[in-house]
């Protein structure tokens, strides 16, 4: 059990929750994630990215959108309560330019919707390693922006906001300023985290410029330790496990169509679960 230290709803559907997890807080590095359960008996295990952590206080901050049964249950928990399980930190840490043998340079961080949350520790680490960090934050509408102050603290002037409806910042898509930056030159690396379709189009945008583009994938997972293989994706024609080989991959190598298809595998069941009326029968009747 991990005690909930604080909980805020950032918008109607986005929750920011800080939970006690001292070992995770101490060990985590940018780019890693946790598996969380709302209920240990019949609950589901879902991967959530670590938005922030405080090693001294022994806490990690999770930012998530209520999209399924588990995120809804989590969002319904209150300060002083507890989440049933937090396992982590999982996955490989981000290779931070400036720490990985390459010289610091100009890195553009693109975050879509709550993709800004996992991007935050990465941008922080990139800045600390001496890189120039430009942040592009995109959302459908103004109320869906998260962690803007935190990102501004890192990027300062170099923060570009863009919304689909023009309610805040520029009107348009994140790929537009991204293309302009690539065209202007001097971009050494791009890190894009957000909905799959956004990451895919960011990769399409940077490919003609030959700019290395890293994406962070969030596929269906159960254990998060390499045991189930449910999270597998094709990268450069090879099957890789997001939980242990990722979550970050070279976006130009990812088979986006296959990943999107796999992520929708349980859509029907999930929809059913949302408007489910309990029925006792364990096994569906056999077709005659």
């Amino acid at each position, binding site marked *: 059990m991990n005690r909930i230290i604080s909980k805020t709803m950032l918008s109607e559907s986005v929750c920011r929750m800080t939970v006690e997890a001292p070992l995770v807080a101490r060990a985590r590095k940018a780019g890693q994630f946790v598996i969380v359960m709302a209920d*240990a008996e019949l609950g589901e295990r879902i991967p959530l990215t670590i938005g922030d952590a405080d090693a001294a206080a022994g806490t990690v901050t999770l930012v998530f959108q209520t999209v399924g049964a588990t995120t809804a249950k989590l969002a319904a928990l209150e300060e002083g309560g507890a989440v049933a399980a937090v396992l982590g930190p999982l996955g490989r840490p981000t290779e931070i330019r400036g720490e990985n043998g390459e010289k610091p340079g100009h890195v553009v961080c693109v975050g879509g919707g709550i993709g800004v949350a996992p991007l935050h520790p990465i941008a922080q680490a990139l800045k600390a390693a001496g890189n120039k960090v430009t942040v592009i934050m995109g959302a459908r509408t103004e109320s869906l922006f998260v962690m803007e102050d935190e990102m501004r603290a890192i990027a300062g002037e170099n923060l570009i906001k863009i919304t689909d409806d023009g309610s805040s910042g520029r009107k348009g898509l994140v790929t537009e300023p991204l293309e302009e930056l690539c065209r202007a030159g001097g971009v050494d690396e791009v890190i894009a985290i957000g909905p799959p379709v956004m990451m895919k189009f960011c990769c399409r945008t940077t490919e003609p410029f030959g700019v290395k583009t890293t994406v962070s994938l969030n596929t269906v997972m159960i254990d998060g330790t390499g045991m189930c293989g449910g999270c597998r994706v094709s990268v450069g024609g090879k099957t890789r496990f997001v939980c242990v080989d990722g979550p970050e991959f070279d976006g130009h190598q990812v088979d986006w169509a296959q990943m999107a298809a796999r992520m929708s595998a349980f859509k029907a069941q999930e929809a059913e679960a949302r408007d489910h009326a*309990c029925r006792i029968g364990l096994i569906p009747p056999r077709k005659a």
Partner: protein
Amino acid sequence: MTAQEKLSIPPQEMPEQEPGVRARNMDEVALGYPAEAARTEASRCLHCAAKPCMKGCPVAIDIPEFLGKAAEGDFAGALATIRKSSLLPAVCGRVCPQERQCQMHCTVGKILKDSGKAVAIGRVERFCADFEARAVEEGRLSPPAPELAPPTGRRVAVIGSGPASITAAADCARAGHEVTVFEALHKPGGVLVYGIPEFRLPKKIVEREIESLRAMGVKFETNFLAGRTRRIADLLDEDGFDAVFVGTGAGLPKFMGIEGENLIGVFSANEYLTRANLMKAYEEGRADTPFWHGRAVAVLGGGNVAMDAARMALRLGADEVHLLYRRSEAEMPARREEVEHAKAEGVRFHTLQNAKRILGGEDGRVRAVECLRYTLGEPDASGRRSPVPVEGSEFEIAADTVIVAVGNGSNPLVAATTEGLEVDGRGRIKTDGAGRTSVKGVYAGGDIVLGAATVILAMGEGRRAAASINQDLSAGL
């Protein structure tokens, strides 16, 4: 009773749920002997001086001794004999491949020229364990009090909580060491909980074993991934552990590397079984984890895991389940009983056939498996006759679900995060044969050393490694 009289006692059948009924529920298939049948079966033992059965037992249980006691109705005494060598009789009585171990060497089976008529050692073992458990449950008996050596003040960390780890933890705790078990999942038990289904090994039994460890003072920390949450070196250098046992198992599913393996509806057996077993996805409407409503299911593989997956698919409502295995039934690595059970429940066996590729529709979902026929050639390195594909023999089996059950590799995480820990070409941790690894203070056993094996072999490994730990700690290392 003379030998001749003993040989004339018919092998006792174990009651089972009817195939048509059990294929639709999660309850245990085999119901266990009644006391009288257990005594009768045990009395079939000839008590040969050479005890050939013991040579077939990876942990060398004194089988004739326990059978002798069981035949007299002294089930507690029989269990005490088993416990001298094996920690998990209720589990092993159910999941050991006895026909390839103790029962294969049984003289009774040899005389009757049918290994299927050997003394049913596993069934008697199971009965003895269940007999005690029932007595404890009904309050007629207090739980067996573990004998613990006085506290040594030394601390042992056990990584993973499957059969190897459970055994190592118990043996180290008995020696007076303070033991903490670290488990990555949210429930302890390892493969006994996530992999082996309820209908073959009720989870209550695993919980009972975990409880008996707790009663010995063993602590459990779930949601802890060694290598990520803490590294092995942290446990030794900073957290005050004197020894670490690594029993992380073979938890990295192998795929076949064929076309279509990432289509929607293709699962590793690990995923398919974990959803059902650990996550209880079959409790639809109560469990949050969704399960896959496969109607026509193809299972690839011929081991116990393949049988478990195929039988689970039936229980989850499949109309038809096809099991494809590229060798013949004689080479199948699964326990005989599981093969028989699967057939009786309606799993359709396709031997000497294997998937060539998995075909999908435009929606990215599985629609069929393209198969090839095989013949058997010369024996290969494993000693089994090698399968040879028949050119041009392609045909399709319609399926909306494919479960890949072709084995597990070694999870690389502990090795990758422990400096100096030597592994072989397949990622298995190298030991000195007694559980000691290349790193001082670090021991290993079970499938992470053997590659995917069996519960009883893993237990034997855990026991050997614990003996080394206890020896090294008492020598002051």
